[in-house]
């Protein structure tokens, strides 16, 4: 694969590659078979290794998983903010608003970033530039995408600060990030992200770095701003409580793959995948006082040595014969529900050890071939 070193972020995927048909018009974001790998000194990390999900216009989707499962890398890949090298988009398509954005030249991508899709980052403490006033930084985003005067951009900054609930915005707009509290700064980040009326808001752990008392306020703000603007929201979090309160649909990620998707209610109340079940039963509030908390045995796999077969198999209490050698693809279990687990395949569709050479998934064949 040819990669063009682009200091501005990501190299386009191989030129002249064939992409599939565009998704229906009501689908704003369609991620298909996305694989983002990082080539580092000790080898290659498959941070995102086959991620598929769709997000309709105005819809809210929670991408859930523990630290290091690839959810942030997924979002940075969508924004094309991955540094290449060491990163590489090995495979996949990302359709956004009718266009396949991995094949866009960087100049076109730049026009989308911050305008049609924008991102709220995890660390409001370090995500704002310390040497510019917050108004300056918001106005800069406006000026980058709209033909407006400095004065109009500045007014837009004041207006956005007001919209995100910052008191006396005319005064705050002239302040530097260090003069604001963490919650305020996150509000500024939200104001900045929404300043150009994006169609997609990606919020990467927007409340993780904040005080517990502020977390609910910020989530409420993101939700209300999303409703008011009609933008779609991709909320990335490791916190199931946050998902339950904020989004309509959710996707659970484990070790670089999506293992389960569905409405937030369905997934939380009736998890299909053993990993999701483990996550939910380990929430303290689900257990009576005095009882032992459920845990998921073992640890997240070493990214350099992913287990063969299903990646959750070494930790899975329900692992059985096919799991060791075959990685289950996502399968529709109920309308609107998908899970990647052999338990949800009828016995006739489960592979057996005799199938190694013939019916393994492409990914699997690759690995088998290497071993």
């Amino acid at each position, binding site marked *: 694969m040819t990669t063009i070193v682009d200091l501005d972020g990501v190299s386009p995927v191989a030129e002249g590659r064939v992409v599939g048909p565009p998704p229906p018009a009501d689908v704003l974001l369609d991620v298909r078979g996305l694989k983002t790998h990082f080539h580092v000194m000790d080898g290659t990390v498959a941070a995102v290794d086959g991620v598929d999900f769709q997000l309709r216009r105005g819809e809210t989707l929670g991408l859930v998983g523990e630290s290091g499962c690839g959810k942030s890398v997924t979002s940075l890949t969508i924004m094309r903010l991955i540094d290449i090298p060491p990163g590489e988009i090995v495979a996949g398509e990302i359709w956004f608003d009718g266009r396949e954005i991995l094949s866009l030249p960087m100049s076109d991508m730049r026009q989308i970033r*911050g305008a049609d899709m924008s991102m709220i980052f995890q660390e409001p403490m370090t995500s704002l530039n310390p040497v510019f006033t917050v108004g300056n930084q918001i106005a800069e985003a406006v000026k980058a995408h709209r033909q407006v005067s400095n004065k109009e951009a500045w007014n837009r900054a004041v207006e956005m600060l007001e919209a995100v609930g910052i008191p006396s915005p005319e005064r705050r707009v002239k302040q530097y990030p260090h003069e604001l509290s963490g919650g305020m700064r996150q509000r500024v980040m939200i104001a900045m992200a929404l300043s150009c009326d994006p169609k997609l808001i990606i919020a990467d752990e927007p409340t993780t770095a904040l005080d517990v008392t502020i977390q609910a306020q910020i989530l409420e703000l993101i939700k209300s701003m999303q409703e008011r603007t009609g933008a779609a929201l991709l909320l990335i979090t490791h916190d199931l409580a946050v998902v339950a309160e904020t989004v309509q649909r959710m996707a659970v990620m484990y070790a670089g793959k999506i293992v389960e998707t569905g409405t937030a209610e369905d997934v939380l109340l009736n998890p299909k995948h053993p990993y999701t079940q483990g996550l939910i039963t380990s929430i303290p509030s689900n257990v009576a006082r005095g009882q032992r908390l459920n845990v998921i045995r073992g640890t997240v796999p070493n990214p350099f040595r992913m287990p063969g077969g299903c990646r959750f198999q070494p930790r899975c209490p329900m692992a059985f014969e096919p799991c060791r050698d075959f990685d289950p693809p996502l399968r529709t279990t109920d309308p609107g529900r998908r899970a990647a687990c052999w338990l949800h395949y009828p016995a006739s569709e489960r592979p057996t050890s005799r199938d190694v050479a013939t019916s393994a998934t492409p990914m699997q064949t690759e690995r088998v071939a290497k071993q």
Partner: protein
Amino acid sequence: MPPGTRHIFTQQPELPPSVLKFIVRRLILLVPILFGLSLFMVVFLHLLPGDPCGAILGEHSTAENLARCQHGLGLDKPLYQQYFEYMSGVFHGDFGVSATNKVSVATSFLTRFPATIELAVSAMIIAIGVGIPLGVAAAKRQYSLFDNFATVASLIGISIPIFFLGLLLQYVFGVWLHWLPTAGRYDLGAYSYDGAGTNFLLWESLVIDHDPAKFADVVRHLILPALALGTIPLAVVARITRSAVIEVLSEDYVRTARAKGLTSRRVDSRHVLRNAMLPIVTVIGLQTGLLLGGAVLTEQIFSWGGVGNWLFQAAVDKDFVVIQSGALILATIFVVVNLLVDISYAYLNPRIRYS
């Protein structure tokens, strides 16, 4: 653009009163520094064997001549009295008179310091103008061939002895290629300068005399010594810029700036460089302070009539008064330059509060 809106992108933080207080306190701190330095200089210089009379009299030094000379210069008085008399002169603005040529220190300094300023500033312009872009480019292509080349070049630049580099430049560009003059500040045969002027020859030739040819002559004389003197600061600035930029590039706010859809150039010039400037400005300040103290080797090699040359000669002649006063003046300049650097922090980094 409607009037009154420019401030948005060019706004400067106002200097709060605390900065004024800070400046005053730093200037007050100068007093003990200068007292300590003067005391140290007087005691130390008199502990060394020999005195200016040896240099003045040379082969004529008989015991009788020597005693008369020493009496004439006041060197036979007790040390505390010499110090007291010297310092009371300094407090009245009298930095004394050279023992060897009877010219007042203030006069010598004022005629020579402009030469040093022109040389030092030119050297720093080369160092900054080349060093910062080089450092940024190296940081953006970390571990690339270009970066490795820049690293090696910087190391050579830092370690090459100035006298060698100066002679090399003179040989290549003066003797061999005949492109540039190798000595002096202007062509003595073609031009003359009014001794009553400022002695800033760039200024004199262009603004006072309105003579572009004369100005070009001065610039041509300036190039080689400025290159020789600027090499070390250039290498230092390039190294510091590289490491500062690499550090800032991994900051979250740089990712935020890219996520806003800004062009790569705007991210670098605004968000990265502005934050990377703090360590760079520190180094620039220190290097400028050092260069303003006079570059002995460069001035010697290129027969440049600056303070470095002058103080070197004073040290050879054991011209106590010149050495003492020169050191005091240069120490003051060094402190003031560093004060300016500290004040510039307030502009570069709004988080800094002077207290």
